[in-house]
C-alpha cells in the first residue's frame, strides 16, 4: 500500500518537472527581454489576469454563455442522434433508407457547414446551436447504432422467451446492454460540441469564451488569450471527468463483463 503511494507521488513529481521548467524558462526569457513581452507573456501575469477576469465576473459570464450554447446544441444533436441510431439499429429497412444519406453528410468537414449555416440562420444563437448540434449528432448516432446493433443475440432470445413487449425489450435489454457504447457516444459528442462552440464563437459572437480569446487577440492582450485557452482546455477536461465519474457510478456491473470478453 505504502509502496504504491510513493510510486504515485513519484509519477506526479516527474510529470510536474516539465511544466515547472517551462514556467521558469518563460519567466526568465521575459525578465531578460529576449523576445517582445507582448507575445510571450510571463505566466504570473496570466494568473493575475485570470484572477482579475474572475473577480470582475467577466470570465464566469463568458463561460455561462458558452456553456448554455453547448448544452442546447448538445442536447438537440445528441438526442436526435440517439433516436436516429436506435431506429436504424432496430429496423434494417430504415437503416438502408437513412444510412447512405447520413454517411454522405458526415463526409463534410464540420467547419465547412459554417458558411451555409450562417447564411441560413444569420450570426445569432440559432446558428451556433445548430452548428454544435451537427457535431454532436454524428458521434452519438454511430455509437448508439453500434451499441444496440452489437447486443448479444442470446439476450434478445431470452427476452423473447419471456415474451417482452418491444418497448420493454428496448428498455430492459437493448439500452442497458448498449450503455457503454452510448456513453462513448455522449463523451465524443460533448467533446465535439465544446470544440465547435469555440470555433463558432471565433467567427461570430459578441460573448462566450471563444470570443474572449479573439477579443484578447484584437486588443493584443496575450494574457487574455492565454487565460482563454487554458480555461477552455480545463473546462473541456472537467466535462470529460464528470462524465467518466457518472459513467462508472452508473455502470458498476460493466467492469466484470468487460474483462470476460
Amino acid at each position, binding site marked *: 500500500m505504502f509502496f504504491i503511494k510513493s510510486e504515485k507521488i513519484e*509519477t506526479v513529481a*516527474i*510529470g*510536474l*518537472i*516539465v*511544466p515547472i521548467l*517551462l514556467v521558469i524558462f518563460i519567466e526568465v526569457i521575459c525578465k531578460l527581454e529576449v523576445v517582445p513581452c507582448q*507575445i510571450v507573456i510571463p505566466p504570473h501575469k496570466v494568473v493575475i489576469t485570470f484572477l482579475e477576469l474572475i473577480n470582475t465576473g467577466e470570465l464566469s459570464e463568458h463561460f455561462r454563455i458558452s456553456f448554455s450554447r453547448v448544452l442546447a446544441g448538445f442536447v438537440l444533436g445528441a438526442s436526435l442522434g440517439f433516436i436516429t441510431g436506435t431506429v436504424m439499429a432496430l429496423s434494417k*429497412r430504415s437503416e*438502408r*433508407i*437513412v*444510412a*447512405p*444519406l447520413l454517411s*454522405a453528410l458526415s*463526409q*463534410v*468537414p*464540420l*467547419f*465547412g*457547414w*459554417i*458558411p*451555409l449555416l*450562417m*447564411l*441560413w440562420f444569420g450570426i445569432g444563437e440559432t446558428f451556433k446551436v445548430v452548428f454544435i448540434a451537427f457535431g454532436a449528432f454524428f458521434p452519438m448516432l454511430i455509437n448508439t447504432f453500434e451499441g444496440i446493433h452489437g447486443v448479444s443475440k442470446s439476450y434478445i432470445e431470452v427476452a423473447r422467451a419471456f415474451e417482452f413487449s418491444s418497448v420493454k425489450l428496448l428498455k430492459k435489454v437493448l439500452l442497458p446492454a448498449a450503455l457503454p457504447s452510448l456513453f462513448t457516444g455522449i463523451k465524443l459528442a460533448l467533446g465535439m460540441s*465544446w*470544440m*465547435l462552440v*469555440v*470555433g463558432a464563437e*471565433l*467567427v461570430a459572437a459578441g460573448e462566450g469564451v*471563444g470570443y474572449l*480569446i*479573439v477579443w*484578447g*487577440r484584437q486588443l493584443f492582450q*496575450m494574457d487574455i*488569450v*492565454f487565460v*482563454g*485557452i*487554458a480555461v*477552455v*482546455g*480545463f473546462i*473541456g*477536461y472537467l466535462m*470529460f471527468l464528470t462524465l467518466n465519474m457518472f459513467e462508472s457510478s452508473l455502470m458498476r456491473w460493466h467492469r466484470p463483463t468487460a474483462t470476460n470478453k
Partner: protein
Amino acid sequence: MKSKNIQLMHVLEAAFLPAIIFVAWFFASSYDVLPRNLFPSPVDVLSGFYEVLNDGSFFYNLNISVIRVLKGFLLGSITGFFIGITLGVSRFLEKLITPIFNAIRQVPLPAWAPLLVLVSLGEMSRVLFIAIGACYPVVLNTFEGVKNVRHDYMEVGKVFKFSKVKSFFKIILPSSFPATLTGLRLSLSISWMLVVAAEIFMTSGGGIGEMMWSCREFSRMDLVVVGIIAIAFVGFAMNFTMRKLERLFSFWRITLKQSR
C-alpha cells in the same frame, strides 16, 4: 433471381431519401417556394460550379487547400510519430512528457487559431494550426502500438541477442506500424477538417474554405454548396485512400491474427 430482386430493392431504398430530397429541392426552388438565394436549385449549383471551373478559381483554391493540408499533415504526423515512439520506448520520458501532453491536448483545436495568428500572419500559422491537430492521433496510436508489442517477440529478440537498436528496427517498428497507420488515417481526416477551419478563421491565404467564406459574404449560396460538396468529396477520397493504404501496409497484422 430472387436475390437480384432484393438487391434492386435495397438500391431503391438507399436512393429513396436522396431522391425525395432532390425532387423537393428542385420543385421548391423552381416554383420559388423557398427564397432562391438561400436555397439554390440544383441547376443553380451546377451553373455555379461551371462558373468557378471556367474562371479557374475552383481548382486554384482546391489546390491551395490540398497543398496546405499536406504540409500540415506531414509536419504534424512526423512530429507525432517521433513523440509517440519516444514515449513508447522510454518509461522515464513517458512519465515526463505525458502529463503536459495530455494537458495541452485538452485545448479545443479552434482555440489555437487566435494565438497562431500572432506567431505569423502568413501561411505558417495555418500550417501549424493543422499540424497541431494532425499530431495528436499519431502520437496516441503510435504510443499504443509500441506499448502493445507482444512480449514473446521481444523475448525472441533477446534470445538472438539483438542490440537495442536492432530490436527497435526489427521488432518494435514493424509491429507497431499498423497502429501508426490508423493514427495517420485519423490524422489526415482531422487535418482536412482543420484546413477548412483554418481558412475560415485565418483568411487571406486562399483555399477552398476561404472561397466558401467569401461566397457567404456575397450571399452566393450556390457556390457555398459547391464548396461543401467539393470538400466532402475530397475528404472522402482521402479517407478512402488511407484505408486502402492501411490494408496494404498491414498485411502482417492479418497473418498475426491468423497465427493466434
